[in-house]
């Protein structure tokens, strides 16, 4: 009896999930398109790895030097002249990057001073980054329970987008601790408004496994500036309770200080773990944040090898 009730509950949950997924997936093509467009604006000027290495496409011939394996010699080329030539292919090193995007309720916020919710902006940024990286040949995975292992290509991108939007969102402000391969890259996008200690625990947990990561904080302008006036009753979006303020103007500078402190704290956590940190406001164009992130990622991969 109880089991049956549980079953119907689950069925209902799935149903409602599917409904909200339908609603979300309606926006998916637009989201993907937007992400592609933003990625396109950045693809120029970025180059592949112009160096020889393990790969399939021809890179160069070079004179045989002692120590080269005999099977590397390109006999056809060598027959054209006196010396022996070794065929080298271009290095095609694929990096696996894991993405995580905050899907908690607090992300679903859009003040009167912005045009998009934080959620939409975070998704767009994540997908755009994924698209950009996949074009560079990287393999992208989704860091989520029931997520997606790293993969590359058009189909993988679509699947990634689908999973990112449609997989049931956790109520957590922070990513779950999942086993990742060593030296994997991790990109975390969210508002990181949870207490600094929790964030630090999460970041350090991954850093201890040798995972290199990047934190991108997406904030609404209202969250940074507190532009309200007069008597306001603030209500939290994740059951934090509410707070009535008589004159918000009087609170503004103190709040400003507080949020700057919070950001400094996040930056310090990242620095300690060897990670990078960036902040983005939803009233600014997403390209800037994406460019910075992408440069960080591609730079670090280059450095890494």
């Amino acid at each position, binding site marked *: 009896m109880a089991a049956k009730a549980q079953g119907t509950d689950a069925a209902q949950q799935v149903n409602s999930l599917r409904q909200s997924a339908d609603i979300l997936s309606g926006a998916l093509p637009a989201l993907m398109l937007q992400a592609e467009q933003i990625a396109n604006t950045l693809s120029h000027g970025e180059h592949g790895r112009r160096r020889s290495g393990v790969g399939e496409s021809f890179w160069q011939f070079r004179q045989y030097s002692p120590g080269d394996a005999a099977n590397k010699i390109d006999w056809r080329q060598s027959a054209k002249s006196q010396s022996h030539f070794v065929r080298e292919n271009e290095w095609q090193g694929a990096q696996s990057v894991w993405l995580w995007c905050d899907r908690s309720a607090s992300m679903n916020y859009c003040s009167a001073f912005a045009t998009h919710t934080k959620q939409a902006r975070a998704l767009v940024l994540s997908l755009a980054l994924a698209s950009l990286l996949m074009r560079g040949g990287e393999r992208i995975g989704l860091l989520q329970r029931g997520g997606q292992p790293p993969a590359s290509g058009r189909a993988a991108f679509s699947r990634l987008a689908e999973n990112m939007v449609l997989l049931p969102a956790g109520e957590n402000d922070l990513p779950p601790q999942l086993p990742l391969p060593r030296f994997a890259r991790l990109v975390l996008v969210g508002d990181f408004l949870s207490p600094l200690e929790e964030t630090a625990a999460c970041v350090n947990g991954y850093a201890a496994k040798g995972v290199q990561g990047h934190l991108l904080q997406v904030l609404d302008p209202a*969250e940074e500036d507190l532009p309200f006036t*007069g008597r306001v009753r603030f*209500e939290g979006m994740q059951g934090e309770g509410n707070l009535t303020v*008589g004159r918000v103007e009087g609170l503004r500078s103190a709040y400003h200080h*507080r949020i700057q402190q919070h950001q400094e704290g996040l930056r310090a956590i990242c620095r300690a773990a060897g990670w990078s940190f960036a902040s983005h406001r939803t009233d600014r164009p997403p390209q800037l944040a994406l460019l910075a992130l992408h440069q960080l990622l591609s730079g670090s991969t280059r450095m890494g090898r």
Partner: protein
Amino acid sequence: MLYLGPIAFVYPWMLAALAVLPVIWWLLRTVPPSPHREWFPAIRLLQGLRETEQSAEHTPWWLLALRLLLAALLVLGLARPLLNPSTEGLSGGVLIMVIDDGWASGQQWEARRKVMDDMLVQAERHDREILLLGTARMDAASPLPQITTASTARSVAASLLPKPWHVDRGAAAKRLSATSMSDAQRSNITSVWLSDGLASKDDAALSEALAALGPVTVLRDPPSMPVIALQEPQSTQDGFAIHVLRSLAGAPQRTDLHALGEDGNILASAPVEFGADATEAEVQLTLPTGVRNSVTQIRISGGHSAASVWLLDDRWKRRTVGIVSGSGSEAAQPLLDDLFYLERAMSPFADIRKGNISALLATPLSMLVLADIGRIVGEDKALVEDWLEKGGLLVRFAGPHMVEQSDDLIPVKLRQGGRALGGALSWDVPAKLAPFPEASPFFSLPIPADVTVSRQILAQPDAALIAKTWAGLEDGTPLVTASRKGKGWNVLFHVTANMRWSNLPASGLYVSMLQRITTLAQNAGDVAAQTSGAPLGALVVLDGQGQLRSPLDSVRPYVAGDGAPDIGPHLPPGYYGDTVFRTAVNLKLDVQHLHPLGALPETQVLEYGPRVEREAGPWLLCAALILWLVDGIIALALLGRLPAWTKRKFISGAATGLCVVLIAGAFSDRAVAQEQVPQAALETRLAYVITGDAAIDAMSAAGLNGLSKILRERTSFEAATPMGVNPEQDELVFFPLIYWPMTVKQQMLSDKALLRIDTYMKNGGTILFDTRDQLTDFNLGREGEREPGPGQAVLREILKSLDIPPLAQVAEDHVLTRSYYLLRDFPGRYAGGQLWAAANTGDALEKADGDGVSAIVIGANDWAAAWAIDESGAPLLPVEPGGEVQRERAYRTGVNLVMYSLTGNYKADQVHVPVLLERLGQ
């Protein structure tokens, strides 16, 4: 009612609600304004922050004061305060309200009704009983007035209307005394008499009857509003003479008198001017004959009483009478001429034409008088017979020719040879006239004793002779005989039209007889009804405010009698009869002057004036509403729902608003001060020259208005409102066409003005000179030509000092005949005048500056008068002789002129079309 000096409250108990104010104050103090809800994800960061400023927990004191004021205003407003409350009538009891609702009250009826209503409202407040008593003549059988409650009396008074007849205050006094009243009611009575300000013979009776019951207050008009009334219009040579009366002298007064046509269109107007001390004015309305006959009403502009309108019927119409004489011209000795007497006798009431029979009958004619024509010869006879059959009136006078021979177009058979009475060889004396028989149209005309007939022609006696005799001599021989001929009348005077056979033409009877016959002419078919005293049903009647309305059922038919009609409830003034024949019954004043109401004993006399008592409640409630709106805005601002206005933004916004207001004010001042003409540059418009003659300038303005309207409707030229220009001061270059009517009041122009006009004309402007005198022949004063008209004389003076091109009459192939419409002539108010423009002289045209457009166009047809419309778009003046068709052609002329001046002569290129086509073909 609560009286507190200059303020009173109708519902004083409402003021108790003011006690609630402290409670409101306490509530507002303790309850902070409701917060504005806001979702906020970063609430964790907010928690634990200490506010640096003290928050506005409490409503600010000024908002508190505002809301308390709002509540106080609401309470005060609902208590219905009265400013300057009148303390009259506190006593209660019966209020007798006497209302003069005769014709004289129609003028200011709205004011009277308002006073009446105010008084009744006041009486209602004091629960007084009312007795309403109208003084206008009433049916003897109508019910007596009743004492009613004030609210009933209010609804009765609201439906009370002025009556188009006289007041009868004596009868009203009798009705008052016959009204039943209880002793309690009788003990406490006050009276108000809303008088019309005119004296009548029974004033004292009414005031005594009222004074016997209690104190009396009489209201009368202030001296600035006298009652105005018309006397019967008198026909004159060229229109009507009207005597206008007013009741009070004291200040000069000016109004207008209009002659209205059948549709209410104004056919003529004349100013009525009362001098400061005058109570009467004499007005001449001048009208062309054709127009005069279509006048159906004479009305004082803005008059709203039955006496400010005079209805006209056929008796006031002038007939066209043609006169033909058989004897040769005796102009050298006018006293012997037939025509002299006829013309003198008939010209006051008829339009005389002279000529031969065929020429006279070629145009519509009411009456044909043949003096001493024995035999109508040839085709003329057939013409006359035909005309008679259709309803003409032929009046023939005997004479030597008729004694010799006569045709059959006479009512009776004649004996050959005349009869002489009182001659040298005869015993008998010249015969006198017998009294007119009852069937004769001359019946009731007084016969002067000294009218004698010394010679006549005799009729063959037969049975029908008596019936045909309209007038006879004492011996029974006929003097005037008449018979029907088809629809017409054939009348024969058995004497000459001059003094040769009798002294009748020298008497007033001659004029009266001819006038009566003339009356017959117009409505030959209905004379029977008019003379036989048949009852005529009411067609339309005047109401108390001088408007024509359908008659009520209580109106009885009118029987024309000897005396003046007895105007009253059963016979209101108006038209009686049917649409074919109708007779006008007018309210005739039985006095020569309008005397103001004299001093009355034992009464208090007040003037109708503005009401002193005022309701302040609506204003207070309105103020409360505004405060409520202000409070709402402030509340929104406190909640932070208004657009974020920092102090600086607010100040700059206020400053901007102030600037806008100041600039607008400055501009409106500038606009007033600014010269008129630069305005003219903003839009294309027509202009007229201000001549200094106010009537002509007004007509020019109205005329160009009418033409501009037509241009806007029919062409792509969106003409703005026309402007008057004064060449002495104003710049002319902005106007494509300037209309310049010629008047003898035209001032001669200075050199500067002449130079300006010359520049205007040389630079492509066109001036339309209108001499308005309908002269066909225009000349510039060359030797030996005929005398110019008045307008033309002025024009000559002006043109003498201008450099004008050679002029030529506008020919059939001139561009003006086809610049928009295809026209053959250019009529205005008159037709027939020619149009002159610069002569078309080959080379000169090619080189001309203005694209060959003549800088000067001269005509005489008074176009502005034909184009003129009033504010409602109705034409102001009739056009002669072609009526509305001619007006349309006048408009087309105007359109062509404007198009000509605007577009140049490009239509002239049409003449080259055949050549061009031919070239193209090759």
